[in-house]
């Protein structure tokens, strides 16, 4: 059951082969057994969870079930959920109980899905290894000595270890796709504006986008049907017709033009990861795809540009944590300034502080043109590179991350090395394009562990249905996405 697709689970629930309460309890039992080691979940509320499961069973019995009714979903702890502790992985919000629901949460509630719990993450989604979380790191289910990636590391480990049927994540610079690559599952970052950011704790608002993290492309399509859609409460939510993201899953790929950006296969890519990606692309050739070389010449600049824009936006967004209305307030203070400065010094971790400081610096008087404006100009060049590439291809493929999962502690003291983890993912956030990572095979680590490798698929704006089709067809002829770490049964 834990390996079943969302569609299969839906059918089992419909046929009353299992109830939502039983299904939910199965996952809660796995969480009890495995979470103490993996640390994927940081908030559980079994009463709330089981109440939702019971309500789902009533709905199913009444014949009103939607496709995800009764299915237990893990929610990244960046989404406010009414009555749930919502911490964003930070000491700043360690005691924050959200007084309202994020749009994504209301969408799952309306669909009758069950909220299994809140998952661990890098603090305020700033990190690529989940090690910046105030609540401790998360173990990669494929090798407990390694990181799951980040920032959606808890959701990633929960999907990989089958501690949920599927999970949500958010992706500002790669936080869905890089962990999907490192933990071996399917993750999709939609086009910017497709999923509402309402109630999703803000990091870099012009880049943040929520998306599904699941076992297969088909599961991601079903999740997208729930998550996507216009919401007037998010000023950047796009007014578009509701889509059925499953509609193109079965289309053959004959004639699909796959663009390979030469910059994604250059220096910096682990040779074994490169081989796995090339093998996957050969599989696409067999499926009838035509391979074309494209160029994204400004790829290397995406990291410097991102580390101006994202911290600048973060420094503004995180100014709301002042210890006045919610969040951490320091225990001892004499005046207002001291209350602000101490509350923020105590409430934020080192990486969050670094990014706030960088953001404050690049926005400070006299530096705006040299940094922020310059970064916005190069951002346009990066978007133009993609526009040019998409004249010659339908989707772009390459690695999602430059290496397999690295050892915990390996990069924590070297922010720049950590930032380079997102070299293949950040440019799509800057351009606002959709991207996904799907399991494409394994690469043996130096200590003999088989570690998952992800293939990244980047689509043009609003081309999620096609990307899911491209991923699904590959998953019909390969079984990488069905593999599960050993020893966690």
């Amino acid at each position: 059951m834990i390996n079943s697709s969302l569609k299969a689970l839906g059918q089992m629930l419909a046929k009353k082969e299992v109830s939502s309460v039983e299904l939910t309890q199965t996952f809660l039992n796995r969480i009890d057994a495995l979470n103490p080691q993996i640390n994927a979940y940081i908030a559980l509320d079994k009463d709330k969870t089981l109440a939702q499961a019971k309500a789902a069973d009533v709905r199913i019995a009444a014949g009103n079930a939607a496709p995800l009714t009764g299915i237990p979903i893990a929610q990244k702890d960046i989404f406010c959920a009414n009555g749930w502790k919502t911490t964003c992985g930070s000491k700043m919000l360690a005691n924050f109980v959200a007084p309202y629901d994020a749009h994504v949460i209301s969408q799952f509630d309306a669909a009758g899905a069950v909220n299994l719990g809140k998952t661990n993450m890098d603090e305020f989604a700033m990190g690529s290894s989940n090690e910046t979380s105030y609540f401790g790191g998360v173990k990669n289910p494929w090798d407990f000595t390694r990181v799951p990636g980040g920032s959606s590391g808890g959701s990633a480990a929960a999907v990989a270890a089958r501690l949920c049927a599927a999970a949500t994540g958010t992706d500002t610079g790669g936080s869905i796709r890089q962990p999907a690559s490192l933990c071996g599952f399917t993750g999709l970052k939609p086009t910017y504006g497709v999923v509402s950011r309402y109630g999703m704790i803000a990091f870099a608002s012009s880049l943040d986008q929520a998306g599904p993290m699941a076992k297969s492309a088909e599961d991601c399509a079903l999740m997208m049907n729930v998550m996507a859609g216009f919401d007037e409460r998010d000023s950047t939510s796009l007014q578009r017709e509701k889509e059925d993201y499953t509609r193109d899953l079965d289309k053959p790929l004959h004639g699909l033009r796959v663009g390979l950006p030469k910059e994604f296969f250059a220096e910096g890519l682990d040779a074994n990861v490169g081989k796995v990606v090339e093998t996957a692309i050969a599989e696409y050739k067999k499926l009838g795809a035509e391979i074309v070389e494209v160029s994204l010449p400004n790829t290397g600049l995406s990291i410097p540009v991102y580390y101006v824009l994202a911290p600048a936006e973060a420094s503004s967004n995180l100014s709301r944590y002042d210890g006045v209305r919610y969040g951490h307030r320091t225990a001892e203070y004499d005046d207002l300034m001291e209350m602000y400065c101490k509350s923020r010094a105590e409430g934020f971790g080192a990486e969050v502080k670094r990014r706030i400081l960088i953001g404050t610096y690049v926005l400070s008087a006299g530096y705006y043109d040299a940094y922020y404006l310059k970064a916005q100009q190069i951002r346009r060049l990066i978007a133009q590179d993609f526009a040019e590439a998409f004249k010659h291809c339908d989707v772009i493929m390459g690695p999602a991350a430059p290496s397999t999962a690295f050892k915990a502690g390996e990069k924590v003291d070297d922010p720049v090395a950590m930032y380079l983890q997102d070299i293949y993912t950040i440019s799509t956030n800057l351009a606002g394009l959709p991207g996904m990572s799907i399991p494409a095979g394994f690469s043996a680590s130096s200590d003999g562990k088989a570690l998952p490798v992800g293939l990244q698929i980047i689509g043009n704006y609003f081309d999620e249905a096609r990307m899911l089709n491209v991923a699904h067809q590959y998953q019909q002829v390969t079984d990488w996405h069905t593999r599960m770490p050993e020893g966690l049964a």
Partner: protein
Amino acid sequence: MALSIEDIKKIAHLARIQVSESEASATLTKLTGIMALIEQMQAVDTQGITPMSHSQDVVQRLREDVVSKTNQREAFQKVAPVLGNGSSEQAVDGGLYLVPKVIE
């Protein structure tokens, strides 16, 4: 431009984050590395390129100027922080948030 320890202290003050001397020097090392990465941008000629602030070319929606939210003060103040300075009460009183005196 090389950052100095004074810059770090100034930025930290602007960001309202208290830093000790030892934190400031550790931060200086890390931020210097990050700024070196960022400086790669300066090699690009961006003259005449329109800055891109957002990926979609859309305008802000307008709505009718009518009341759309109800008062949820009680719900929101439930998550107010603890007052501190020896008090374990929440930092709210009569629907207002309590902060140190700022106006004499």
